[in-house]
């Protein structure tokens, strides 16, 4: 699956991997804001951002080509609008749309490829995001894999008997079948949630999540944060 690769990358041990999640998240914000608020996107600034990000991936020992390809996930959306812009006589804007969105996606990818998601979410708590919301996010991510595997086998099972989507029986039958599959998936998810709750109670849960270790924000993290901010400001000025 798509995410599995990113997760593997995030398990690395490089300098970037070892930085505190809060430092990396803040550095990402600086970079994104620099890209977003820059006046247009001069080729020079764009290339420098790109070079910095590529260096980042290389330093983190994440396959650069793989990362470049993954960040291309934004391109269909961007290219569609860029085409419209170009046709309506604004080719400069078209280039900006594609450039800015791709660079931003690449920057986000560098963060998640060097920070396991649970650590990242915990880092956000330090920035003031409500813990409740983060815990919901953590559970979404955890059970994504479980429920998606169930959905995949349902789709498979259906396709062995003609599938939901393709032609064959009446449109309505297949529509109802797909709705039924979702309802069954829903009921199974609901049951899983109840079992999880039971299992939490059995292990002494009393209404509040206690978490292990709060990461330390060390001097190296400060250095990293401040220098990335400085770089972002300088490059924006190009």
């Amino acid at each position: 699956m798509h995410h599995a690769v990113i997760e593997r990358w995030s398990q690395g041990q490089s300098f970037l991997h070892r930085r505190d999640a809060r430092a990396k998240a803040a550095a990402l914000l600086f970079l994104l804001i620099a890209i977003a608020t820059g006046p247009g996107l001069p080729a020079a600034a764009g290339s420098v951002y790109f070079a910095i990000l590529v260096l980042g991936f290389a330093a983190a020992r994440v396959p650069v080509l793989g990362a470049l390809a993954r960040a291309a996930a934004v391109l269909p959306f961007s290219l569609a609008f860029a085409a419209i812009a170009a046709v309506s006589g604004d080719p400069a804007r078209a280039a900006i749309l594609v450039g800015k969105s791709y660079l931003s996606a690449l920057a986000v990818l560098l963060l998640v490829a060097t920070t396991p998601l649970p650590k990242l979410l915990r880092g956000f708590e330090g920035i003031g995001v409500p813990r409740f919301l983060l815990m919901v996010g953590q559970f979404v991510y955890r059970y994504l894999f479980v429920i998606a595997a169930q959905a995949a086998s349902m789709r498979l099972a259906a396709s062995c008997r003609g599938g939901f989507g393709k032609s064959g029986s009446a449109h309505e039958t297949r529509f109802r079948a797909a709705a039924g599959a979702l309802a069954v998936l829903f009921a199974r998810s609901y049951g899983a949630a109840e079992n999880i709750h039971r299992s939490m109670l059995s292990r002494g849960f009393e209404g509040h999540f206690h978490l292990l270790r709060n990461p330390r924000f060390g001097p190296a993290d400060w250095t990293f944060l401040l220098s990335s901010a400085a770089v972002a400001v300088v490059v924006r000025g190009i």
Partner: protein
Amino acid sequence: MHIPDGFLSTQVWAALDVLAAPAVGLAVRKTRREFDEGRIPLLGVMGAFVFAAQMINFPVGIGTSGHLVGGALLAYVLGWPAASVVMTAILAIQALVFQDGGILALGANITNMAIVGVLAGYLPFHLWGGGGATARKIAIFAGGFTSVLVSALLALVQLGLSGVPMPAPVAGISVGLFVVSALLEGAITLAVVQALETINPGFVRTARGSHSRGAAIVLATAVFLAAVGVIFASTHPDGLEQLAINAGISQRATNLFATPFADYEAGFLQSAWLRKAAAGLAGLALVCAACIGFGRFAARKRSA
């Protein structure tokens, strides 16, 4: 439609981030009042369900298929505040892990889908869901329909306000496509709710038909404003501003937005472009505030 970074102008994304943060905060507070931390797994697993639901394709017609978006369905099952929280978590994970939607644009995407989309999906259900069987069906369908339509139109407005070129034919085609996918969402939501009720009638909340005319008007206004916004933002570059001036909000809005930006760059506000943007944003903010305000009112009524 998940807007990536690089598309929205600074004013638009910043304003929407500022708007979305307290809205999500409010939703979290309300959710915590109803669900304790022990129910976090339920919210999380339901979020995972909405994610996974994209893998089940529904036949649409000649060769194409669509899937559930889920905002309205979540609201019917969990109530709107929890549904907003779950959708917010989903959008954040999509932005981070799947590069689907931007980080700076997260406020915009949350506003469109997790806040306004969920409220717009919940409202019809709240209003008419308590009526007879037919009324209930219509309400469920309408909820799915409006949630997707309003979210998509808002996204289009934001893009238009940000100056992303959108010639009239493109805007027209987009709106047409949105209507189709909104109809599909309505149909899927209804079909899934019906199937769920054969499994366990307890899953879907019972709505109190309040028949509040005011709320219906708010809903209709939200949809209408969003639609009008799209048309003006695209076909009449200055139309939105004109509308705002007519409504008398332009001046006030400019002042409202002037304060935070005043130190940033003095002459900045002179630009007509910014006035237009400010007016548009103020309009958006009004729509959102109305939806949120009504949501609070509705929730109070239900718990009463």
